[in-house]
């Protein structure tokens, strides 16, 4: 595919966002449950039965979110056969700095200095929020191509002594490229259903470091600088909201549960995914999952799973996909699309580059 001059697509090409490339990247270091059990009061059996996670990837010292985002972004661009886009949107909970956003730096490192670039902050719902954002940019004629990345170095904000979060959250990045096209094309993004409930903002948070605490001058303990989550309550809200917004997304797309070929829920916890799959009455073998080897990678979770599943042949062209997520805020979102005929590129330094789609 040759590069398109920005802005030249014009109204005749259609203003609907269409997925035309996908990539994913994981940092090379793997941490198993047994590794964690050496210093945390936990066990491989407990972690596996409660979360479905057996191992996860973690950045080495010095590596941060922007690095993962640039790697995944580069793979997605290569997958799309593009060297230029008009915007870079980065969904993350773990930006390189509180200020500025990480996306401009990622864009510059990808040779895209000059394009629109911003971060989307919706914790685990980040990719779906970012998808709505990128799709909206194309629909409004403000971009013809968008690189949408979900990337996290979540290990950098986890309290190493908090076994309830330290065993769950992990690092990784996934990305898709969106281009302007027609709503009927494979890869066209269906209606995005988004929601929030800020009355429960303290269920998932890092209490210290922002304007609220600085303005109040409250003394903060060491634990307040780390990510905190009230797991039981979050589980409850997650199951209810993911189920509800999935139904709304299907309804808005004129689809029924029977039309869903692949259900791609945010990989928070295998029990939440199973609970939602059961409530939606989606056949279990249509639900994709990779949480056992990557853990909960927050905003990276969905694009990472999409790219890995496509590369492995579990997600194929023509499959109708339902994605759904829930995260801090609280936030939630769901969307549908048909997977296009593309070659997703994933890189795991140990396994080498793999790409396959049929």
């Amino acid at each position, binding site marked *: 595919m040759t590069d398109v001059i920005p802005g030249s697509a014009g109204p005749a090409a259609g203003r609907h966002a269409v997925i035309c490339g996908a990539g994913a990247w994981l940092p090379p270091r793997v941490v198993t449950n047994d590794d964690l059990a050496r210093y945390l009061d936990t066990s491989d059996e407990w972690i596996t039965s409660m979360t479905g996670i057996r191992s996860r990837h973690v950045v080495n010292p010095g590596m941060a979110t922007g690095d993962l985002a640039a790697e995944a972004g580069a793979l997605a661009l290569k997958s799309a056969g593009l060297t230029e886009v008009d915007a870079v949107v980065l969904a993350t909970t773990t930006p390189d700095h509180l200020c500025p956003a990480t996306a401009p730096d990622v864009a510059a490192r990808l040779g895209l200095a000059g394009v629109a670039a911003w971060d989307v902050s919706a914790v685990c719902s980040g990719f779906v929020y970012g998808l709505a954002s990128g799709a909206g940019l194309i629909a409004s004629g403000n971009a013809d191509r968008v690189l949408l990345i979900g990337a996290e170095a979540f290990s950098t904000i986890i309290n190493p002594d908090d076994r309830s979060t330290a065993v769950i959250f992990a690092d990784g990045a996934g990305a898709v490229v969106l281009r302007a096209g027609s709503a009927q094309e494979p890869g066209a993004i269906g209606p995005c259903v988004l929601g929030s409930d800020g009355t429960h903002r303290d269920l998932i948070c890092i209490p210290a470091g922002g304007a609220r605490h600085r303005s109040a001058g409250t003394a903060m303990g060491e634990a307040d600088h780390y990510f905190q989550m009230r797991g*039981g309550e979050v589980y*409850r809200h997650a*199951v209810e909201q993911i189920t509800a917004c999935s139904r709304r997304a299907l309804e808005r797309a004129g689809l029924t549960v029977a039309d869903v070929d692949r259900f791609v829920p945010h990989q928070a*916890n295998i029990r939440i995914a199973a609970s939602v799959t059961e409530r939606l009455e989606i056949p279990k073998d249509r639900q994709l999952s990779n949480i056992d080897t990557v853990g909960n990678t927050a905003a990276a979770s969905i694009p990472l799973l999409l790219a890995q599943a496509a590369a492995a042949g579990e997600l194929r062209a023509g499959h109708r996909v339902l994605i759904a997520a829930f995260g801090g805020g609280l936030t939630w979102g769901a969307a549908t699309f048909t997977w296009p005929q593309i070659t997703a590129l994933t890189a795991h330094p140990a396994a080498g580059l793999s790409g396959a789609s049929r």
Partner: protein
Amino acid sequence: MYEQLKEMIERKFQVPLADIEPTATLEDLGLDSLDVVELALIIEKETGVRVTDDELVEAADLGSLANLVMSRIAPV
């Protein structure tokens, strides 16, 4: 309500009916902390009564839990 709870637990968690008694705790029945949250969701869906996971965990046994749920059913 006790019979209803018993049926929910048997259906959702595949606990044999014969093992479920009013004096059994949720832990006795093999439910872990996430199962408890699931049960709270099912109770809310099927009876309209909202119970927190803490209340479920703190209930002395299944009989007490049934009483708690009964006491919260809004009069028709």
